């Protein structure tokens, strides 16, 4: 194992095919050390698949995945830097998952070289988890908590969480984000979090990766990306006039009003908007919906 405590995770030309069906298309990605990444995408976009390839859980069809300059696949030195915490199945081998919470934590302690046993115990107590309980008997929320304990207590230099807050109530989600930031402040390790609950997590993400149908649509600093988008609302003629010459992504009519979302690489300051229109910034969620949710892609006024 190299002495790099903050390794970089890199994918080059990553493709994954199931038979003739390609699900990841030539992905290039560099996760710099000490950053919290958000990975967002629609259902079926390939988020879990991508994360599985990055962590050596799935063999890629083409391309390379390197961690700290070493290939990840079947490489103990590279794998020692990684922790991929994902949904734990309540069934195994066709039957109920009769393993206990304790079994999973023991497995984690054995195979994750940076495992912090005391921190794990504190987290278990904080979440009120019963280690003697079988996985198949846990609620969805409790299952999420187990995956969170494994991720945080792993202390792995690159920790990846796949939908960690699914099933958690809002109080538990807030607790998770707080724990995440505390851990990050203490360890400065790299986190990658895939989630559908974008708005809550947006404030935590330093950088965001938007995945759509196996391609990276956008990747960059969250504030910088979000700052490029603006919603222009007003009378139709006024909105059209303000948006003329800029890249319009979506438009919709709201009674007599019209709202267009524009992308401005230089920020909303590029718009020459008067009092006849209202210009407002977009949230990350709205940016995501705009880029991934509308039928016509590639810009143009509707």
């Amino acid at each position, binding site marked *: 194992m190299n002495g790099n405590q903050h390794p970089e995770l890199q994918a080059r030309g990553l493709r994954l095919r199931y038979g003739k069906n390609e699900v990841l298309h030539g992905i290039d990605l560099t996760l710099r050390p000490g950053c919290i990444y958000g990975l967002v995408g629609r259902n079926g976009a390939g988020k879990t698949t991508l994360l*599985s390839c990055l*962590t*050596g*859980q*799935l*063999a890629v069809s083409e391309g390379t995945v390197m961690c700290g300059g070493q290939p990840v696949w*079947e*490489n*103990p030195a590279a*794998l*020692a830097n*990684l*922790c*991929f915490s*994902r*949904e*734990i*199945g309540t069934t*195994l*081998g*066709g039957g109920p*998952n009769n*393993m206990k919470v304790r079994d*999973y934590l*023991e*497995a*984690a302690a*054995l*195979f*994750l070289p940076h495992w912090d046993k005391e921190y794990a115990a504190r987290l278990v107590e904080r979440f009120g988890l019963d280690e003697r309980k079988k996985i198949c008997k846990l609620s969805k929320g409790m299952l999420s908590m187990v995956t969170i304990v494994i991720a945080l207590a792993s202390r792995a230099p690159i920790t990846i969480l796949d939908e960690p807050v699914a099933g958690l109530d809002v109080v538990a989600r807030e607790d998770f984000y707080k724990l995440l930031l505390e851990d990050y402040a203490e360890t400065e390790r790299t986190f990658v979090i895939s989630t559908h609950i974008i708005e809550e997590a947006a404030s935590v993400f330093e950088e965001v990766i938007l995945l759509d149908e196996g391609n990276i649509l956008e990747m960059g600093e969250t504030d910088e990306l979000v700052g490029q988008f603006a919603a222009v609302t007003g009378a139709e003629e006024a909105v059209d006039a303000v948006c003329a010459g800029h890249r319009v992504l979506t438009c919709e009519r709201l009674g007599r009003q019209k709202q267009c979302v524009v992308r401005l690489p230089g920020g909303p300051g590029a718009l020459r908007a008067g009092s006849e229109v209202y210009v407002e910034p977009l949230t990350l969620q709205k940016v995501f919906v705009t880029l991934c949710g509308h039928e016509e892609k590639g810009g143009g006024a509707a």
Partner: protein
Amino acid sequence: MTARAVRFSLRWAAMLLGVVVLFALITLGSAALWGTDSRENFMANYLIAFPLLAEFIFLISGASMAMPMLPLMVAMGCTRRAAWAGMQIVTWLCWAVLLVVSLGMFRAGQAFGMETIFSSGAVFNGLFLALAGQLALPAGLLEGRLGRGLVAGGGSVLMLGGLILGAMHETGILPDPGFMAAQVVCAVAVVALFAASHRLAMRLAPKNA
């Protein structure tokens, strides 16, 4: 990393072996206390059939171990090579222990003056144990209905096969070299399943373990 995989697998294997050894001790104890007439002591039947039961326990439990263990180890960052090697080491260790226990039971049965159908087939029976263990791993890796079908179907074939072949040899229906040939076929099957489980393990992609 293989050492960690062995440690993890051993915990489960220890439970399995503990059950088998306990069962053997109970059987021997009952024979010592209540005799070996199976009409009077039902447990005496297990002195005869112990190797058969050991195969069955080994197969079912081996598959139960493989089904969650390998994907879980890989999901936690263990390499497939190390996880598979660890499980193989533990499987063969279990085989060795079960073989010793089976031989011990067979000798005990002789000491009690019992006729057993495996009187000359203990080593042959050990091959079936090895086969059972090797069947468990790839069956476990296949998961789902195919895996369970292999375990149930394969296990039944092994049990019957061992019983029938042993009886045939014992009664002279299948003398050597036929009996030797059967053992060779068994050994080849062990090697084939060994290769199959390795191939399956190297392609393992844990979904949610």
